[in-house]
């Protein structure tokens, strides 16, 4: 019995790196923030506002990758449409920020955003009502993606749409939303989307302090989401999730209503994506239908794969790394960066089948192999 308990403890090691990772993440965040706010620009340790914004954006992507990893890595649902939830969260935030502009828009209309004025809209569409309240907008930022995920997931999982069929349907979903949001009639600013934000909760979006605050908020939320997800996934629910991934039919035969597990996990993941989107918008300053584009969603999946799927930290690292690579490559070799990025994807797939995180395991198992070999001699 006691031996079993010790096994039991030993068996649940998947989360052992989470806490150290969170600690590193948060201390880096604090250091960067302090370096930005307190150090003089001339200091070599100064972190520019550009870098802070960039880091903030990366962290939003990391959260998005985390959301995808939860359902793809752990539940086997390959969503090629997660960008949609991200974008919906982003739009909710964007609408709030848009309303915050008030009469400081170019046409000086206190109610209507500029794009409505010059397209001759007479009044605010109903779905814009209440979006001037921060709390309401934030509720929408999680409720709308969550609700969409719920409806979509409920339909799809109940009908047992699985595998590539599901993936392509999620893609169809985001594609349909892309086309819809492009339409100016929708009332979301069409292709231009929402931009030209001024302030959030009364704080000037262009001030360094606000930026740092947003950055820290993102880091904190990312850490929180990571911890909660880790907790969920290492509970028995996590095991059921893995079971669903490996053999959904078998899981049903031992009495789990797999579709409910999938729906809730999908909703959870969509909500995280929505939160990531809401954090993303004030930091990059624009939300437009491009975020719905299927290619974006595919890229998210790729971040996860590069980092190592089925490992939450891997997803985060993958998102950070790929996006950092993108930033560097586009600046260093604007004409050839796609070669580098493409090659990166191919090479990671070929040589790091379990992603960057798997590299660690790969090295370890090599070492182990040589140890056993020696032992056998």
């Amino acid at each position, binding site marked *: 019995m006691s031996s079993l308990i010790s096994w039991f403890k030993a068996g649940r090691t998947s989360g052992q790196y989470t806490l150290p990772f969170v600690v590193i993440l948060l201390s880096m965040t604090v250091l960067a923030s302090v370096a930005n706010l307190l150090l003089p620009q001339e200091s070599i340790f100064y972190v520019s506002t550009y870098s802070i914004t960039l880091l903030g954006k990366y962290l939003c992507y990391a959260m998005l990758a985390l959301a995808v990893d939860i359902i793809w890595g752990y539940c086997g649902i390959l969503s090629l449409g997660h960008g949609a939830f991200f974008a919906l969260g982003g739009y909710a935030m964007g609408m709030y920020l848009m309303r915050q502009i008030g009469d400081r828009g170019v046409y000086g209309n206190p109610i209507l955003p500029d794009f409505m004025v010059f397209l001759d809209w007479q009044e605010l569409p109903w779905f814009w009502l209440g979006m001037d309240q921060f709390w309401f907008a934030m509720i929408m930022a999680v409720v709308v993606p969550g609700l969409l995920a719920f409806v979509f997931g409920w339909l799809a999982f109940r009908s047992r749409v699985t595998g590539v069929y599901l993936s392509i349907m999620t893609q169809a979903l985001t594609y349909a939303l892309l086309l819809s949001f492009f339409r100016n009639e929708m009332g979301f600013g069409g292709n231009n989307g929402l931009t030209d934000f001024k302030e959030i909760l009364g704080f000037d979006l262009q001030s360094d302090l606000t930026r740092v605050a947003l950055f820290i908020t993102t880091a904190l939320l990312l850490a929180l989401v990571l911890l909660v997800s880790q907790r969920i996934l290492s509970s*028995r629910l996590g*095991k059921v999730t893995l079971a669903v991934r*490996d053999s959904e039919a078998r899981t049903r035969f031992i009495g789990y209503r797999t579709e409910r*597990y999938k729906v809730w996990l999908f909703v959870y993941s969509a909500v995280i994506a929505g939160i990531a989107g809401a954090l993303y918008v004030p930091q990059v300053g624009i939300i437009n239908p491009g975020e719905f584009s299927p290619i974006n969603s595919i890229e998210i999946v790729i971040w996860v794969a590069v980092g190592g799927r089925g490992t939450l930290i891997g997803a985060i690292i993958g998102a950070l790394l790929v996006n950092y690579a993108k930033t560097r490559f586009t600046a260093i070799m604007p004409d050839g960066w796609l070669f580098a990025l493409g090659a990166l994807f191919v090479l990671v797939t070929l040589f790091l089948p379990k992603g960057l995180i798997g590299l660690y395991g790969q090295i370890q198992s090599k070492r182990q192999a040589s140890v056993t070999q020696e032992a056998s001699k």
Partner: protein
Amino acid sequence: MKAIDQSIQGFRETFRRDLVWPFLAPEKITNVDVSNQMILYVEGLNLSFDGFKALNDLNLYIKDGELRCLIGANGAGKTTLMDVITGKTTPDSGSVFFGQTHNLLSKDEADIAQLGIGRKFQKPTVFEEQTVFDNLELSLKTDKRVIQTLFSRLSPTEMDRIDEVLNIIGLKEQCFMKAGALSHGQKQWLEIGMLLVSDPRLLLIDEPVAGMTAQETERTAELLTSLAGERTVIVVEHDMEFVRSIARTVTVLHQGSVLAEGSMDQIQSNQDVIQVYLGEDAMEAEL
């Protein structure tokens, strides 16, 4: 006015908590009604695949606590019958009742499993990416709703139960090995183990001893016999020695319907059975 009334009525009906929103519906805690001694009623089952009749007016009654052997030629429909009972396949016609009240045909796999019907598949299917331990933990008889699962803890009794089963199936050493890395026979055992921890009312066991050595076969026989009484067990096997060692009643399926039913000796001397299944000199060949 009436129309409005009706639509309100309809609306109410649609939004009855227990009907439309399966997510919100309270989980039914059920008892199997076995007041007639029977636990499983299979009546007039028909099922065809593209014209091929896999089940043909099949009738089968299983007593509560019985250990029933189901034999029959390859392709007779044994596995298909289990598929129907466990909700994997829907028959063209017929009825399947669990106890007197539960119509299995109107339930899905998870419901049926939660009613207490457990199954071991012909081809061992385990969660390959998870450890043997986790495979067992997942199969435990617990509340399997989402929220409850999220907050569940492994209780000491449950741990003891798993420990016990690990001993029975002889995979204690492989406890934290990924189930995918087990050999074929080990997977068979693991699946039996998963069945054991789930503590079902009715066990459907499809070819448990395939790929086991003689001794292991014996052990399995013991195990199954010990299970019967408390539970009801239906075993499908082609190993006649094994069948004889456990069987009280044997049912022979042929081309989707029951060919013969009786004690092992009756069956072994039944000419039809010998012809389509056992072979003329079956017993000598076996030994």
